[in-house]
Each structure stands twice: as C-alpha cells, then as structure tokens.
C-alpha cells in the first residue's frame, strides 16, 4: 500500500489547497473534509515499447479534491482520464506498482477501518452466495457485526426494491437488480464515504436512466451524513445526482472545472459540457 493510502487524517479543518493544475477546492461547512487528496499525482510504469523518457504513464497530475461529510460529489470526465484511478486512490486500492506522489488522506475511524467503501464498475457479486448473503459481504469485510448488519440488510432490501429476492442467486437477477444489490452491499459496510465507479455504466440506457432516477430519490448521503463520490462520464447523470460536480481533463487528469448546485439545484449544463470538451 502506498503512503498516500495509509496516511492518517490530520485534524486541521479544510486546508484550502489550490492545486497547481487548476481546480481549487472548497469545503462546505466548518467540519473538516471526510476525505481529501492534495496535489495527488499517479503514474503507472509503462510497457516501455512506446513513449520516451522514463516510460511511465502519468494518469493523475497534481490533483486536489476534498469531500465534506454528507456531500454528494460527481467526478465527471472523458473515458480514460483517470477518474477510476482517482477513485481507487481515494479507496486505497491502487496497484502497488503505481508511483504516487503528493499528499492525501484516507482517514480511518476509531476501529482502524478505512473511511471508504468502494463499489466496482462491475457488480462484483459472488456467484456462490445468494443475494442476502452477497449483501452481507459488505458487513463482513468492513467488520460490521452481524447482529446489526442483518436487520439493516433486510430493511435495505425493501428500500432497494429487492425484497422477495433475498434467496436468489446473483445470476437469477437482472442487470439493474445486480447493481442495486452491489450498492446495497457497499452501504452495509457503513463507511462515511461511498465511492461509486460508474455504478450503472454497464446497463442499457433505459435501465440506466431508471437507476439514476431511483438513486436520486434514495438520498444515500444527507440523512446519514454519508458522503458519496460518484465517477461518471455522463453529464446528465452527474447533474441529476450531485451537490457538486468536478470536471476532469483528458489524461493526465487534472481538475479543470468545478460547479456547485445552486439554490434551485440546477447546473449550467452547457458550461459543464464545454469544460468536458476542454
């Protein structure tokens, strides 16, 4: 694991680092960020066949981002800009071969668990576990006691529209249901930050729009003070869901634009699209 991934949170409230590559970071409210990266650069050792110099491929370039408790942040960027890498870095999941520089924090709570629960692009459901048992993987891996997690899981099955499917095998569920189950599993980890990597990216457009509408009503953050970082290349998905949108450039990824939902909860879509096009 990199030093980046294991460094502890220092309690200083919101160091408003303004990244050299653009993208100043503002933190909503007075509470310190629940998750923060400062001047984060990530490179992967190249295959050596192409390119000059060290032969390593720079994926993230001095990127700074902070997430406040309860905030829903969408990271918007073109395919291959390194947004999945950013999410992996925040979740402490970078390939050990990655060269990481900069400063960041993955705060750990009192029990020493990490602050984040990461949901992969593909659902990652275990084919040998029935639906409820698959959801419980989130609790087991995060060390949440079974007595607390199981009743919560049953509640969430209802809320996620999965009740009646507790004993189904994953292959018996539709694509949309599988993604919802994967999200449910991630919620059961009870971490302060959910990291969602294009959670509905693999679905067909119609199901995807339905899932987003459903996710917007779910209020994953908010009431529980749980922050969400969602990575997407879809402007409308970001607009529909996020309190704040961070736009990334082509690789190596930097933050080139940042927008908050205004009082009426609307973004300037054209502006976002322009930023996305560079």
């Amino acid at each position: 694991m990199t030093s980046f991934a294991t460094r502890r949170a220092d309690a200083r409230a919101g160091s408003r680092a303004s990244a050299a590559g653009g993208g100043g970071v503002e933190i909503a409210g007075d509470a310190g960020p629940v998750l923060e990266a400062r001047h984060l650069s990530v490179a992967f050792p190249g295959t050596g066949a192409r390119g000059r110099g060290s032969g390593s491929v720079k994926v993230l370039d001095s990127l700074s981002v902070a997430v406040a408790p309860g905030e829903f942040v969408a990271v918007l960027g073109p395919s291959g800009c390194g947004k999945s890498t950013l999410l992996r870095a925040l979740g402490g999941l970078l390939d050990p071969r990655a060269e990481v520089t900069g400063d960041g924090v993955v705060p750990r709570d009192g029990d020493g668990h990490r602050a984040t629960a990461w949901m992969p692009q593909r659902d990652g459901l275990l084919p040998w576990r029935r639906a409820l048992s698959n959801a419980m993987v989130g609790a087991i891996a995060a060390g949440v006691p079974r007595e607390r997690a199981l009743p919560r899981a049953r509640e969430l099955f209802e809320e996620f529209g999965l009740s009646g499917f507790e004993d189904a095998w994953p292959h018996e569920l539709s694509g949309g249901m599988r993604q919802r189950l994967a999200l449910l599993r991630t919620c059961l980890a009870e971490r302060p930050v959910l990291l969602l990597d294009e959670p509905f990216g693999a679905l067909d457009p119609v199901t995807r729009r339905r899932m987003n509408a459903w996710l917007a009503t779910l209020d994953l953050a908010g009431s529980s003070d749980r922050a969400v970082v969602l990575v997407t290349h879809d402007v409308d998905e970001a607009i529909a869901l996020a309190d704040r949108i961070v736009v990334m450039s082509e690789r190596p990824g930097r933050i080139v634009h940042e927008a908050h939902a205004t009082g009426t909860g609307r973004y300037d879509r054209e502006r976002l699209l322009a930023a996305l096009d560079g």
Partner: protein
Amino acid sequence: MSTRARAALVSLTTVAVLVAAWETAVRVGDVAPFILPAPSQVLVTAVEQASLLGPHVATTSLEAVLGLALGAVVGWLLAVLTATVPVTGHAAHPVVLLSQTVPTIVLAPLMTLWAGFGLTSKVILVALTVFFPVLIAASAAIRDVDAEHADMVAGLGGTRRHQLWLVRLPASVPGALAGLRIAATYAIGAAVVSEYLAGQSGLGVYIQRSRKAYAVDQIFVGIALIAILSGLMVLAIVALRRSLTPWQAAMAAASTP
C-alpha cells in the same frame, strides 16, 4: 422425453450395439475363447466368480476412494496455498511437474519398497495421480475470479484474510470439483496398476493371476469391473458437486431451455 433421458438412451443403445456386434463376431467367426471370449461367456464367468470377486472389488474401491480423497485435499490445499503465497507456487512447480513425469508403473515398485505391500502404498499412488488435475483446475478457478472480487472485498475494507475466506477458498471449490471429476475417471485405473506389481488383493491382482492362467474371460471380467467402478466414481463426484455447488446446477438449468 427430456433431453437427459434421450442422451442416456443414446448412450445405452450404443453400448448395447457394440456388445451385440462383439457377440455376433465371436459366434460367426468361431473365435477361440482363449483369444476373445464372447460377452455372454464373460458374464457367465463373472457370475460364477462373484464371491471371489467381492473382496478384490472392495480392496480396489477402498484404495481408489481413499487415494481420491487424499489427492483432492492435497491438490486443493496446494492450489489455495500457491495462490495466497506466490513464492510457494514457484517452490512447488518443479516438484509437481516431476511427480507427473514419472510413470506410475515406475513409481509403484518404489512405493512398495517404502510403504509396504498393503493399502498405504496404493493410496499414495492413486493420490499422486489424482492431485494434479485438482491442483490445475482449482488454481485456474482461483485465478479467473481473483482480481475483480478481491478488489471488491479490499474496497469494502476487507483484509487479505477476508479475501481468502470470502473469495479464494469458495472460488476454488468448483474448480477443485471439476478437476476431481476428471481425476475420478482414472483413480480406479491407478489403483489397479499399483496392485499389478505387488499386492495380495484387488482387481489388479485378480487380472494378473488370470493372465498367468490364460483365463482371458476373467481378464475381461476385470476390465468390465474397472469400467463400472470408474463410472460409479464419476457419478459419485457429480452428485457431490451438485450438493456442494448448488448455484452451478441452477446456472446450468437457467442456460438450457
């Protein structure tokens, strides 16, 4: 008629036609019984010698079942170990390959020398034959599933021990069972070869004695019993697989209309 019943009918018909052709060839061609006995005569011999065959069948079956169990456990554990601690894989690789390059027929006398004429040497020889397909299939199953699911567990805060318990161990089971199904087809054969060279009881001993007595019909009884016992072993493994990996049966049922 269901697809499975139709498949079974076709298989049985094929066997019946082959046996009938054999019977006809022997009768029409007037082949001497000490060259090639008719299947009917093999059946008569089998019935006559039923009480003599019982203990031989029991010995061989016991050797095969124990060897299969030992080989499966060793192969499976080795697959999990080498996937979890890669350096053990590099260490085990040459030894495993060496164990597979030496023919059983060469190893058998050595094993008798070291472990005696009894059950132990036969069980070890069967296990040596069996562990390899289990190891290969279980390792492949772990490799196929690893990256995505291991990341998922790590991303939820899981440790390496969680990855082992939640992902690697369960993922290896269907693979190990697939390897075991292959291994089951030659567990009986391996037991017979190990008896062939040294032993007091077993189908290998029975066939060896029959060969020395030029009792060709008895050799065929031995061959038929090897085939039947091997078939039963495979059926047992298939049943074990169904009870241990119920989701696979459900998946297969879902994919066939």
